[in-house]
């Protein structure tokens, strides 16, 4: 533990020995990873590797064992709303928008983390500047938009909460490449503004080319880790995930 204590320096999120699952069925086995401030970290792996379970455990939607240290505080005993209040905000898989609420109401829903109304409206303007499409569709019901627009809405909703760590699950799933490219640019921009991003992706190449560092998951374990550009060149990763 003394070693662990030392490495906390500089890490925003430090996960160690994390286990989680559904019912009696374990999915994650002693997962450890670190995210430092203002970096984009990618967690990649194939279908069923446990990536989504990892995010759900981090945002406290499902039970977990082990340690999740966020800003020096253990998240494991907390509830989802407390993790959210601490600044760990998730863009969940499948977006989980409030379909029959307008885009604007979806965004305002997340402004809950602060109580200042003027600041919330200012944030709303920032979101419409970041995603002009959402501004055009602010009065439309979220469920009636295209997949790409819904993903923008989900990301803007999470950003409205002014996250310290933004955890995004399968951002690119089912979206046109041109939309994915736009979203990636947004990610780079918010990282430059100081928001740390944890990106969980099935599209290994996409994720690793946008990220600073990466982790590769397989059957609930971390099997590789390192700088993103090294992982892309790693023969094992290339063979297993990029088909090269």
């Amino acid at each position, binding site marked *: 533990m003394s070693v662990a204590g030392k490495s906390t320096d500089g890490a925003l999120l430090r996960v160690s020995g994390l286990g989680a699952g559904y019912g009696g069925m374990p999915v994650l086995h002693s997962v450890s990873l670190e995210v430092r401030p203002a970096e984009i970290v990618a967690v990649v792996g194939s279908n069923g590797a446990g990536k989504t379970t990892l995010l759900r455990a981090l*945002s406290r*939607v499902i039970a977990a064992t082990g340690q999740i240290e966020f800003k020096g505080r253990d998240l494991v005993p907390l*509830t*989802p*709303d407390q993790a*959210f*209040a601490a600044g760990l*905000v*998730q863009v*969940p898989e499948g*977006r*989980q*928008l*409030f*379909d*029959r*609420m307008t885009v604007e*109401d979806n965004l*305002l*829903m*997340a402004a*809950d*983390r602060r109580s200042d109304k003027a600041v919330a409206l200012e944030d709303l303007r920032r979101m419409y500047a970041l995603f002009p499409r959402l501004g055009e569709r602010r009065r439309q019901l979220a469920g009636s938009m295209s997949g790409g627009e819904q993903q923008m809405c989900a990301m803007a*909703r*999470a950003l409205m*909460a002014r996250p310290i760590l933004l955890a995004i699950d399968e951002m690119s799933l089912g979206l046109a490449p041109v939309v994915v490219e736009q979203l990636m640019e947004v990610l780079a921009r918010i990282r430059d503004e100081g928001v740390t991003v944890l990106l969980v992706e099935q599209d290994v190449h996409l994720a690793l080319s946008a990220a600073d560092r990466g982790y590769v998951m397989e059957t609930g374990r971390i099997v590789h880790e390192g700088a993103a550009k090294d992982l892309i060149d790693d023969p094992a990763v290339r063979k297993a995930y990029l088909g090269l």
Partner: protein
Amino acid sequence: MNSAIRIAIALLAVVVLAALPWFGSDVIVQFGISTLLLAVLAQGWNIIGGYTGYPSFGNSTFFGLGAYGVAVAMVQWNMPFWVGMVFGAAMAVCFAILLGLPVLRLKGHYFAIATLALAQVVAAIVSNIPLFGQNIGLVLPPLNNDAMFYELSLALLLMATLTVWWLTRSRFGFGLIAIRENEEGAAVMGVNTTLYKVMAFALSGLFSSLAGGIQAYWITFLDPASAFDISLNVKMIIMAVFGGPGTVLGPIVGAVVLSAVSEVLSSEVTNAAGLFFGIVVVAAVVLMPRGLADIVHHFRKSGWRYFVQNIRAHRI
């Protein structure tokens, strides 16, 4: 319409309704009391069923507890009416919190079935407690003052409606709608879903129990079968859904329209009233599955095609 005119119309409606006992006949006032109480029940159900999306069949249990609160306080303890109201409301709220914690983990049909069993269980328990008069029931001291019961019911409906109106503008209500739309989405967006759901259930129970308390004192007789009548719960759901669940005025309009329909039917076609009422409900479900409130929004745009669209959309 700007908000000043809206508020003026609402105030005028309340004043006219409040003046009804002075110019209406006894029959009208009695119809008014039962309709107002049903509207309170529909509005109470609206909080948990309409806004939060949890179709509760437990609200008639809260109604029964409220009724018994008044009956026990007045008959067994010789306390004034208002003490009974407080006692009944406290029982209902405690019950809602204790039961809500486990039961609100269930969703959709499972939640409906779990709460459906409640009324039966509580009725069985009550019929074995001497304080509650067991199977025989309790007879309350009669009070021949329908005008007072009417005003009390109207005040309660006003309170329930203002609460629902506040829900539409408050963070709490926003959270409830988020839970209805997508519970996991609400959870990851920082809504304490358990707390919100239990509070909505308790609030819903509070209004149901107060309606039960007024009803008990008005009818002056109470036994387990009438206090925990599951068909009352079905009625409040039909009324709320008929008018438009998840809207401020929908449940009130639904309660008034359906009460009037059922009143006319039972005096015109006494024997077949139930049959005709059933036809009205089926027609409502087929033609306007989202309630009267939805018609108001869409009829202007699509006209009669609105009904055709609904029939098509549900492949009936």
